[in-house]
């Protein structure tokens, strides 16, 4: 664990550790449960040293039971605790689907009992994990009222959103992208800071075309933007950061300004969150749209393992560039 008293450069992964550490030290109600998060520090070592610091009960290794531990987190949350469950990989959240959608999501609506719980879900491809260690499962939960979904793309957002998630009174699914863990870095301010849930951020201002995206694809969009800049095409990159509830305002405003839009995500295309963004725009921005709404996403297949296949599967900056040119020419 790192000290956070001064401005310091941290990776996305370290930013997550810091958020956990700060919230645990400020709030006794916060505790961690999951598989191999104790002495081992988690599959990605995010909680390394935590058990030593916070003890065997505030950081504990559970049996291999995703549904059971999410259920237990719900119960503890109702009793005033602030549990944070680590899924070893986001893929295994399918095993806890029922507790999340039926118990956690509906609880407050039905009888007013809040479930302040965070589920951390290390997700996404690009790490040769194959069909069961690469999935982007966020859309599975996007259609379930009562959940909040966040998916940071930078170290700053990773820390700020996790701190907000922990203090939120609702079940929050926190999608942390494995590909970004050690690949993005940033200097963070020394003081407590929060990124509010529900607010998108314009990561790059632009005139010609909006790219609405989140997670690892933010960096793909920024990469494309840089290249397109040389052709005189000026991309605006909107990072959703929160997927649910959506920041409809920022999305609509950006497209209202640029009149053209690409919706980009790593998750497979059909039924992805991008569909909702497109639908929202087709409903609310119709009169300002100057071109079809293009979606760029992974094809509708499981995530394949072999490098040439995974390479083919993942959306690339060149896809964004091609689509942008097409739209500008439209």
């Amino acid at each position, binding site marked *: 664990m790192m000290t956070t008293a001064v401005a310091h450069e941290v990776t996305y992964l370290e930013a997550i550790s810091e958020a956990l550490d700060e919230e645990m030290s400020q709030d006794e109600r916060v*505790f961690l449960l999951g598989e191999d998060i104790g002495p081992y520090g988690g599959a990605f070592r995010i909680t390394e040293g935590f058990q030593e610091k916070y003890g065997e*009960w*505030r950081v*504990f290794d*559970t*049996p291999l*039971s995703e*549904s*059971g*531990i*999410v*259920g*237990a*987190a*719900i*119960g*503890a*949350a*109702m*009793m*005033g*605790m602030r*549990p944070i469950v680590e899924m070893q990989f986001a893929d295994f959240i399918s095993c806890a689907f*029922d*507790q999340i959608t*039926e*118990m956690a999501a*509906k*609880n*407050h*609506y*039905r*009888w*007013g*009992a*809040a*479930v*302040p719980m965070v589920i951390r879900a290390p997700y996404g491809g690009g790490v040769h994990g194959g069909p069961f260690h690469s999935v982007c499962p966020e859309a599975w939960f996007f259609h379930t*009222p*009562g959940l*909040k979904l966040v998916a940071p793309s930078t170290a700053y957002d990773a820390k700020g959103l996790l701190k*907000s998630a922990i*203090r*939120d*009174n*609702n079940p929050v699914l926190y999608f942390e992208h494995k590909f970004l863990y050690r690949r993005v870095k940033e200097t963070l301010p020394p003081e407590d800071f*929060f990124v509010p849930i529900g607010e998108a951020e314009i990561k790059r201002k632009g005139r010609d075309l909006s790219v609405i995206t989140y997670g690892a694809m933010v960096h793909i969009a920024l990469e494309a933007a840089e290249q397109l800049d040389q052709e005189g095409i000026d991309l605006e990159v909107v990072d959703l950061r929160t997927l649910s509830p959506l920041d409809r305002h920022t999305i609509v405003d950006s497209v209202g300004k640029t009149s053209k839009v690409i919706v980009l995500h790593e998750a497979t295309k059909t039924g992805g969150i991008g569909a909702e963004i497109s639908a929202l725009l087709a409903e609310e921005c119709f009169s300002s749209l100057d071109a079809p709404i293009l979606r760029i996403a992974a094809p509708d297949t499981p995530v394949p393992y072999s490098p040439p296949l995974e390479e083919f599967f993942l959306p690339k900056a060149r896809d964004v560039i091609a689509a942008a040119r097409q739209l500008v020419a439209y």
Partner: protein
Amino acid sequence: MEISKPEFLQLYYYLLLTRAVEERVTVLYRQGRIAGGVYTSHGMEAISVGYACALQSDDIAAPFHRDMGAFLVRGITPGEIVAQYLGKRTGPTKGKDGNVHLGDLNRGIFAFVSHLADNLPVAVGAALAFKLRGESRVVVTNTGDGGTSRGDFHEALNLASVRKLPVIFFCNNNQYAYSTPLHHQMAIQDVVERAKAYAIPGEIVDGNDVAAIYLMAQSAIQRARAGGGPTFIECKTMRMHGHSEHDSAKYVPRELLEEWKKKDPILKAEQSLKQLGYVDDVELLEVRKRVEKDIEAAVEFAEQSPLPEGPETLEGVYAETLVEVLA
């Protein structure tokens, strides 16, 4: 252990009240006044009355769908219950949910979800909170025989035992899960066999004997409070009505029902009360009258309560984020 007169009378009162509330709700259902389904605990009232009476006020009950008694004992009023069935705004879910899908954190009772066994890991989590904070509070939860076949049952009991959490698992073995008899549900004779897989102490109790259940709950609760971990208690009983009030339960042999009718928990409680010399018929009648009055008041309250209005549908999806926390 002995059971005192006031304790037994309390149990008796709640047995009667539970029966009466459910009977009245059934009448309302037959009159077409209840839009959704009605699942009663008729003949099995002793279980949830017994365990709930053994709880202290800051403990938690995490009941299942045939635990009407637990709601009443925890202080949900009969009026609120009837209002809940009628979909009124004064029901604890304000019309959002139906039948016994209700709860109240202030009164220490969790709302059940239909998905069977989902309540068990949640109960374990409440016990985990108590353990984490070093409180001596306990949780009592319940499942049907059918519910024990679900994965969440397994995951809950395992976690509770590994962490020695203060949670007591009741199992309401009423021999059927909807139309499915026990031998199609599991290959074991007694559900309590399941507890061995977790090294959880298991007990069998007469599910129609409210005093026995109360005492057994008490001792399990005591053990749990003292850090002894979970207990599993199988209550042998019989579902005397259909699965829900629309089910005639033709698949249940009539003789079985006849046999169990003689073991009715209210009858049994009355016999014991008299044997113990705690009451005579006059006193019993007084309790009955009290219950009748309670029910009339409840129905009146519920009927006079307003229905929610359409736009209330949109309220409460999210809990508000406390401003002072995020400041």
